[in-house]
């Protein structure tokens, strides 16, 4: 058990536990490790098992000098003007460092959450995760705000290192405030022979969300990502995603399923095959629930090797009237029929979601459609 457990096993309030449970939180005793950031305080950073360390990023920088080499390694502070400003404003980084030691088979998920409790707050986080060689781990992460927080600005950097032969399966669920701004920058390096399954579920309303991500996949490694994206009226989500198949045998499949209920979704994906024997697929499917809103899906392929196999599919459409009529003729109300079609479109059955969270996510989809989120 790591030293940081006793230091950071702070208590969450009942309200905090309640809002976090909606995005996947469970009692730390039932998870292998837990990190919870409340505003600027990493309230909980605890590990239940040997081989998993979890601590504030500042502590990690002091404890392990090699962590310095991982920070701003895949992303430069001046890469983006917002990032540059955010980095300059903060003397000390806020965020967590997770280190799963080589070969550790983590028995229960590691959970990490970010909460903004201060209305009109500003939060800038920098998290670093290292999954050691041949380690195996499931990760659950989430973001949430209490019901009284509608506005604020969250900026995050995630740098994730999946070492050779490691297996990492993750799901993240966010539930921000309806008038919030969120800018997330994530960079991932997937080592040789490693396997990554990553699912993002973004259902709740917010004003503007920019997600900027780059993933570098090594030799014979695979990455399978799915993004479930919902944009109610007043929400604009922009995704700038780039996947680089950097070495022979690298494989990637990225699927985005987007639903606009009056909101705007811009999804720009680029898949780059940089080596022979690489194989990648981009899929972008959009469903428009009303004549308002917009979905722009732009999957792009770039082959830098003549032996790179890359493909993409994109579609955007309305709810199929025949499906709606069929379900209504079967005894469902129009609203319930729409729910079922949207849930089918989002195809959560194919998405890794811990069993105990599945019903919750289904409820979130129904709530999002009815404007309840």
């Amino acid at each position: 058990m790591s030293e940081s457990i006793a230091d950071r096993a702070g208590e969450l309030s009942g309200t905090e536990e309640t809002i976090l449970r909606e995005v996947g939180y469970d009692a730390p005793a039932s998870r292998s490790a837990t990190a919870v950031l409340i505003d600027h305080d990493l309230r909980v950073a605890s590990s239940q098992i040997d081989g998993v360390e979890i601590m504030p990023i500042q502590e990690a920088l002091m404890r392990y000098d090699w962590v310095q080499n991982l920070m701003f390694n895949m992303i430069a502070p001046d890469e983006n003007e917002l990032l540059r400003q955010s980095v300059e404003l903060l003397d000390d980084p806020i965020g967590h460092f997770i280190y799963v030691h080589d070969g550790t088979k983590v028995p229960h998920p590691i959970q990490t959450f970010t909460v903004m409790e201060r209305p009109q707050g500003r939060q800038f986080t920098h998290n670093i995760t290292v999954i050691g060689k041949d380690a195996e781990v499931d990760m659950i992460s989430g973001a949430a705000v209490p019901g009284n927080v509608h506005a604020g600005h969250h900026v995050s950097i995630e740098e994730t290192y999946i070492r050779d032969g490691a297996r990492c399966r993750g799901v993240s669920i966010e539930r921000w405030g309806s008038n919030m701004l969120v800018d997330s920058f994530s960079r991932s390096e997937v080592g040789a022979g490693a396997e990554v399954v990553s699912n993002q579920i973004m259902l709740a309303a917010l004003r503007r969300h920019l997600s900027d991500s780059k993933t570098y996949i090594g030799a014979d490694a695979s990455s399978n990502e799915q993004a479930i994206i919902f944009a109610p009226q007043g929400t604009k989500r922009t995704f700038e995603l780039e996947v680089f198949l950097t070495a022979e045998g690298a494989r990637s499949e990225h699927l985005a399923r987007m639903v606009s209920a009056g909101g705007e979704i811009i999804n720009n994906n680029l898949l780059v095959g940089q080596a022979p024997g690489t194989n990648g697929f981009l899929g972008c499917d959009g469903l428009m629930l009303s004549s308002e809103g917009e979905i722009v899906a732009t999957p792009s392929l770039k082959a830098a090797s003549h032996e790179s196999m890359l493909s993409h599919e994109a579609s955007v459409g309305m709810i199929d009237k025949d499906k709606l009529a069929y379900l209504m003729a079967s005894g469902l109300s129009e609203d319930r029929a729409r729910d079922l079609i949207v849930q089918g479109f989002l195809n959560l059955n194919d998405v890794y979601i811990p069993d105990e969270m599945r019903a919750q996510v289904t409820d979130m989809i129904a709530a999002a459609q009815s404007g309840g989120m």
Partner: protein
Amino acid sequence: MLELRDLSVFVGDKPILHNIDLKVGVGEVHVLLGPNGSGKSSVLAAIMGLSPFEVTRGSILYRDKDLDGLGIDERAALGLGMAFQRPPELDGVTVEEFAAALDASRELTNESALLNMEDFAQRDLMVGFSGGEIKRWEVLKLFLQDPDFLLFDEPESGVDLEHIAAIGAAVRKLVSKPAKDGSKRGALLITHTGLILEHIDADQGHLMRDGKIIHSGAPKDLFKHIQKQGYVAPAA
């Protein structure tokens, strides 16, 4: 129970059904026969209120209530249910989820064996179903929906002989089950092959041609006549 009065139906500006009169009493099973394109499926679609079928004349009454202006779900809520001939694929919606949405998970468990569909709970609706599996599912769906009046659009066509008996038994069970208020159910059934007539006791047969009912009579006799003479009205 169900009455079509002088019913005419258009699709766009094209007339499909002309002046149909049809009355199915409580507990009665009626059969529609006719060549392809004669308008049989259009009758069922118009009763269920499906697009693009538009009633331009006459009326459809169910339990003495005029269905004019009612949506599909409102008709279903009144007690109408239909086994579709070509239902759409519903990717990502499993049989189990559909049953749960109808609050009929127990019925799915209880009745799926009757139609040899015990292993379908995790399958997406209609996705990858064979023609015969679709027909069996549509009958099973009616067990889940539990309507008082049953509309069947060719429930046995495309079904292999092995499963015809299962469909026949299931349709018979559905038809003979009491309605929610304890009264008898009614049914209107389209058949092309006539095989289903071996499994149910139909009360009345109607021969359709060119969007009109041109003859009504005993269903088995009418079917035998069609087998010998084709789709022409028997001599008076």
